[in-house]
């Protein structure tokens, strides 16, 4: 197992590969977030047991045993619902500023080379024209800083932004036009004439592989001799699985409204990373971080696509040149040209098993497309590291470098596509063995993390399988492929395991203000792009402080607030929850300093009291109680404010922490046309405590629907001759529509994780994993056809 230990701290790595990864631990943890970082962390941070005691081991008993007001676990409707259903939630492109102008972009049409001529004369003569910005007149700026060692960086590349005549990908913005109206800006932009001196570019996957791939060192692991074990296995599967480029396609396009006030920049952003973006803009523009104020209270979907981009920089720079506020909304085409999505992957997935089903070998290797500047590895092998007990294991990730827009993290990056290969291959082994695929999975259930022997913090995936199988009616499944037919439709059932790494960010921090009217305000620079952050955290605060949610105001997504908490890696809830728990402790301590001798709480220590009924009470004698209002009034204080940061997130250093799910699917495949319809789905989840069943269920369904698109329809058409995306459109890039989506059943074990804040693990990305394989496996059961390349369009089934 040489590489397990060898893949230790990134700083130990030398040579060429290091720069490509530029992926320091921070990068791995943060972005891919999710992508199996936990398994890595346990190798990064030395042997189990040496890490500091996490706050959680201290806080958990208190939180888990002593219930507050009972709001955690309540099916609260979204707090922002009344605004959103009336169209009153204001998004980034909906701030109208005095004297504001509109921006339009011009994109390159070659993949690599330089701009030879750039004629803006006609544009400048167009009605309403205000300004054109190109590399010739753009202010001098620092390049983008990608996710990586700098904890405030959140870019997807490290490229200069309109600083030279170089073209680095097909679709790169090469001019910004400002005009009095959007129509005028669009028209003027269409009049710009550009010629290029093209250079040979690598735009095909085959060419990129032929050029030579490079290994991503953090993802190479070997335990035992997996190739030999595979060759000797009684039953084996060894196949290539392919997944295509895909794009996030949040319905709200990226947009920003910016205004300079002297040297201060105000940015209305659509962002998953407000503090990161404020820092990034300051760094790139050469001003102080405190001079940039980014807010993003409402975000129309993000999915990993709305971190720091070049459009915010272009808008700010153009606004500075023009001396006027600027609105820059990317067209739908612009979103595709400027923001990458999932990389293309070609995965070798092999499993060797004994006759009794036990795995002796798992091999998960292959190649993903990449750019030299991307911090996002599309680390598909991660999913195989902690999944199953196995005698031997080999994982490897190679990158093939193309001249294209840098890929981005797209919901469950790596794991979404890696789990398609792994969970399809498990199904193939089950078929080869004549064994039920659920029983096969349970037979290979690991007792400790297969990679490093770490204990699981809480793993109840077997229960999820049993509960799910019963509820779904799995026993009625006919294991013989193609055996069930209703009219033209072949019916099949399939399943797959979902898993997603637990993550908590290091940057949690909150400002909590309790006022004498008994209400509390909590400010954290975190984000809600639809995940339900505001609602879930309001519940957590209410629970912790024994308040009604109406007495809680949770404010977020403002770079002036405390915290460095990007909406990534399914980590916001855990990060913010840990922060709230810490803030509660500080508040209790602070309130005790205000207690006077005539208070029922007089003489008690922080260990003896806790929040009860909108105040504090002695834990073992709740009759000794005083309301927050009474405490503050008695002390003649209008309010009490505490700023809290939790301890470093070390709980996952000592343990293997993941959320899990048993995903079930029934499909109908038309025997005439090959059309596939998903007729039933069930997600049986094991994700720790569920904070809000209503919003959590929607999160799970949302992930499953995105995985349905991944499995069946979604495909970004990247023309390998030119490097140009040919379907930059919601008409030709097919996400599921209402008629594609059946009623989706969701259940969960509800078993709290004793090592996670509030007992909750992340849920945002979990159900995107495992589901695509469940669909593909159901298609196999329906038709006898094993499709190993996504999307499974009808032509593959005819």
């Amino acid at each position, binding site marked *: 197992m040489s590489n397990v230990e060898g893949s230790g701290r990134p700083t130990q790595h030398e040579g060429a590969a290091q720069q490509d990864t530029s992926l320091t631990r921070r990068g791995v943890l943060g972005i891919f977030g999710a992508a199996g970082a936990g398994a890595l962390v346990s190798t990064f941070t030395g042997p189990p047991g040496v890490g500091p005691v996490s706050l959680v081991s201290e806080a958990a008993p208190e939180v888990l045993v002593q219930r507050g007001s009972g709001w955690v676990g309540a099916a609260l409707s979204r707090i922002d*619902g009344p605004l959103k259903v*009336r*169209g009153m939630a204001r998004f980034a492109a909906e701030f109208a500023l005095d004297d504001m102008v509109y921006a339009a972009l011009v994109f390159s049409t070659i993949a690599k080379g330089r701009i030879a001529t750039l004629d803006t004369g006609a544009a400048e003569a167009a009605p309403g024209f205000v300004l054109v910005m190109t590399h010739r007149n753009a202010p001098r700026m620092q390049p983008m800083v990608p996710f990586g060692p700098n904890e405030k960086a959140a870019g997807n590349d490290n490229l200069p932004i309109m600083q030279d005549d170089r073209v680095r990908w097909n679709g790169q913005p090469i001019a910004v036009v400002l005009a009095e109206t959007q129509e005028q800006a669009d*028209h003027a932009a269409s009049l710009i004439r550009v010629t290029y001196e093209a250079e040979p570019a690598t735009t095909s996957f085959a060419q990129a592989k032929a050029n030579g791939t490079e290994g991503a060192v953090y993802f190479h692991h070997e335990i035992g001799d997996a190739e030999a074990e595979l060759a000797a296995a009684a039953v084996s599967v060894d196949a290539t699985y392919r997944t295509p480029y895909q794009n996030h396609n949040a319905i709200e396009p990226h947009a920003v409204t910016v205004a300079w006030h002297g040297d201060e920049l105000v940015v209305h952003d659509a962002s998953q990373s407000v503090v990161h973006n404020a820092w990034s803009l300051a760094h790139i523009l050469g001003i102080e971080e405190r001079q940039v104020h980014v807010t993003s209270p*409402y975000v129309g979907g993000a999915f990993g696509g709305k971190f720091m981009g070049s459009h915010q920089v272009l808008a700010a720079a153009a606004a500075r040149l023009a001396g006027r506020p600027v609105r820059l909304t990317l067209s739908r085409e612009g979103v595709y040209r400027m923001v990458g999505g999932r990389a293309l992957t070609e995965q070798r997935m092999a499993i060797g098993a004994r006759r009794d089903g036990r795995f002796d070998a798992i091999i998960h290797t292959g190649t993903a497309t990449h750019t030299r500047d991307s911090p996002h590895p599309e680390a598909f092998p991660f999913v195989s590291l902690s999944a199953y007990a196995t005698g031997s294991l080999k994982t490897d990730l190679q990158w093939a470098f193309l001249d294209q827009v840098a890929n981005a993290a797209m919901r469950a990056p790596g794991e979404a596509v890696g789990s398609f290969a792994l969970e399809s291959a498990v199904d193939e082994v089950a078929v080869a063995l004549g064994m039920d695929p659920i029983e096969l999975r349970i037979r290979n259930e690991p007792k400790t993390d297969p990679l490093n022997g770490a204990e699981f913090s809480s793993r109840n995936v077997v229960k999820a399988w049993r509960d799910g199988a019963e509820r779904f009616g799995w026993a009625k499944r006919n294991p013989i492929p193609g055996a069930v037919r209703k009219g033209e439709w072949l019916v099949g059932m399939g399943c797959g395991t979902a898993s997603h790494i637990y993550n908590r960010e290091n940057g949690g921090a909150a400002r909590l203000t309790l006022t004498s009217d008994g209400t509390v305000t909590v400010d954290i620079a975190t984000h809600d792009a639809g995940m339900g952050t505001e609602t879930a955290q309001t519940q957590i605060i209410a629970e912790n402080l024994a308040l009604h949610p109406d007495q809680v105001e949770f404010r977020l997504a403002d770079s002036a607030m405390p915290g460095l908490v990007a909406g990534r890696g399914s980590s916001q809830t855990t990060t913010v929850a840990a922060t709230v728990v810490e803030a509660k402790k500080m508040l209790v301590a602070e309130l005790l300093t205000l207690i006077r001798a005539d208070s029922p709480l007089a003489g008690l220590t922080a260990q003896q009291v806790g929040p009860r009924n909108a105040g504090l009470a002695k834990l073992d004698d709740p009759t000794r109680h005083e309301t927050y209002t009474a405490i503050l009034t008695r002390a003649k204080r209008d309010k009490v404010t505490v700023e809290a940061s939790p301890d470093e997130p070390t709980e996952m250093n000592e343990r293997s922490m993941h959320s899990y799910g048993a995903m079930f699917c029934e499909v109908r495949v038309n025997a005439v046309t090959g059309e596939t319809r998903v007729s039933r789905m069930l997600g049986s989840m094991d994700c720790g405590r569920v904070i809000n069943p209503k*919003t959590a269920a929607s999160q799970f369904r*949302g992930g499953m629907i995105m995985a349905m698109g991944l499995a069946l329809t979604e495909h970004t058409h990247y023309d390998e001759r030119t490097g140009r995306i040919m379907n930059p*459109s919601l008409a030709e890039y097919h996400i599921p529509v*209402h008629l594609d989506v059946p009623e989706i059943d969701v259940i969960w074990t509800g078993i709290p994780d004793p090592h996670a804040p509030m007992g909750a693990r992340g849920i945002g990305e979990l159900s995107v994993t495992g589901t695509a394989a469940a669909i593909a496996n159901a298609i196999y059961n329906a038709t006898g056809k094993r499709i190993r390349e996504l999307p499974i369009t009808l032509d593959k089934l005819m």
Partner: protein
Amino acid sequence: MKNVAIRINGSAVAPPADPRVSLLDFLRETLHLHGTKKGCNQGACGACTVLVDGERIVSCLALAVQYVGRDIVTIEGLAGQDGPHRLQQAFIEHDGFQCGYCTPGQICSAVGMAAEARRGLPSHVTDDLSARRIALTRDELRERMSGNLCRCGAHNGIIAAIAETYARAAE
């Protein structure tokens, strides 16, 4: 004013001078009615759905000047004096959204859909084209709402909210 103005949520408004201005941009940029959303500007997502004389359209593909003399209702005009439209309330109860960006379009579309169903308009999944009454089954609702994309995946909640509001009445 009937023939020179567009009525928007009950108010007469002069159309834009520039015929290129879409109804969507007119609502958002001139009238600052931001509830109607721009998702694709290609007629492919339905986020910009509004009601014209009670019929749902995508306002991104509508030139505002074409709608002189017509009666437009946007999400802002849907709620009555006495509170939100019952469908808006149902969307909250059934969690028919996450990010909320496609939501105004979904709601306006559903209002138009209900009117279509009431007058007996069949859909792609209607078995009997000649039927005079439409039973709003879940699949009928799904097909009829398929012009409104949702990327967060709130489809089940959306359909449940619409079913609660309209399906029983139509059946």
